[in-house]
């Protein structure tokens, strides 16, 4: 299993993501430059957080046209695994690999704090085997309000594509626990074929004991354990 972390101009969570995969999860991981056209034989592509292209126009909108995205889209269409975290999630919705869109936070403010997530989908490898409890994971975004039209939302729910919902520490859903006004408390979604994942919170920022919280590692371990079978 080989992981590739794409580096766009303005990515700033690429090193954290590589560190977590390498040191916390013991995986083989390489960085992939956005101008290249070579996925270097990676099985799993990660688009990290950051501010690709300065967030100009719309978050993720310009990165979606970076040269390597042609190969990332082909990889996903062949059934290969792709995951986007935060800005990576924004890039994946702009690329049309995930449904919906991420709007400006309802508060109009950039929000950087811990939130709690409840795993949802029983079909996606990221969440299917996760024990049901609230996971404490940091967010850091200004445009994280997930939106999809009514039909799309129904489809997401019917097909069990919602990966995580924002919740309280006890797992209950309240408006206060929703940090950005996302529709239906959605914090992450999968595509219909369950090989592309996106989430706004940063599990890679909660994966090392030194940080005092390894809830993110429990989430990312799902990818490794299930894929290796």
């Amino acid at each position, binding site marked *: 299993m080989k992981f590739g972390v794409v580096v766009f101009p303005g990515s700033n969570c690429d090193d954290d993501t590589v560190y977590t995969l390498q040191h916390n999860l013991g995986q083989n991981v390489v960085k992939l430059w956005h101008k290249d056209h070579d996925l270097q034989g990676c099985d799993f592509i990660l688009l990290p957080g950051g501010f690709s292209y300065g967030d100009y*126009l*719309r978050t993720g*909108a*310009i990165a979606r*046209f970076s040269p390597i995205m042609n190969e990332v889209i082909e990889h996903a269409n062949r059934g290969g695994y792709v995951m986007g975290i935060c800005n990576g999630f924004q890039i994946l919705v*702009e690329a049309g690999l995930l449904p*919906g*869109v991420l*709007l*400006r*936070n*309802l*508060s*109009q403010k950039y929000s950087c704090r811990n939130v709690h997530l409840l795993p949802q989908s029983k079909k996606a490898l990221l969440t299917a085997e996760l024990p049901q409890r609230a996971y404490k994971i940091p967010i850091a975004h200004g445009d994280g309000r997930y*939106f*999809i*039209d009514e039909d799309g939302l129904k489809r997401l729910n019917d097909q069990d594509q919602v990966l995580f919902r924002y919740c309280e520490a006890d797992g209950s859903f309240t408006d206060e626990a929703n940090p950005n*006004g996302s529709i239906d408390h959605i914090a992450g979604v999968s595509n219909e074929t369950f090989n592309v994942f996106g989430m706004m919170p940063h599990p890679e920022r909660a994966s090392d004991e030194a940080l005092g919280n390894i809830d993110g590692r429990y989430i990312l371990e799902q990818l490794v354990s299930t894929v290796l079978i």
Partner: protein
Amino acid sequence: MQFVANINIMPIKEILDPQGKAVKLGLHNLGIDQVDDVRIGKHITIRLEAADAAEAESKVKTACEKLLANLIMEEFTYDIQPA
């Protein structure tokens, strides 16, 4: 032939525009109480080379649909004139 396209991109009506809502409050604080709706979008000006108006329009439309607007959240209008 040179053309100039003036493009307006607006959030679709179904989407809450918190920026517009905040500006509306500001306008009320300024004393303009009559304002009952504010929505904020983007204005983009493009200068481009095209053989004729039809080609210019087709390029501008593609630019809007593929990059300048995200049709899930925004709608666009444009006006194209010879430069």
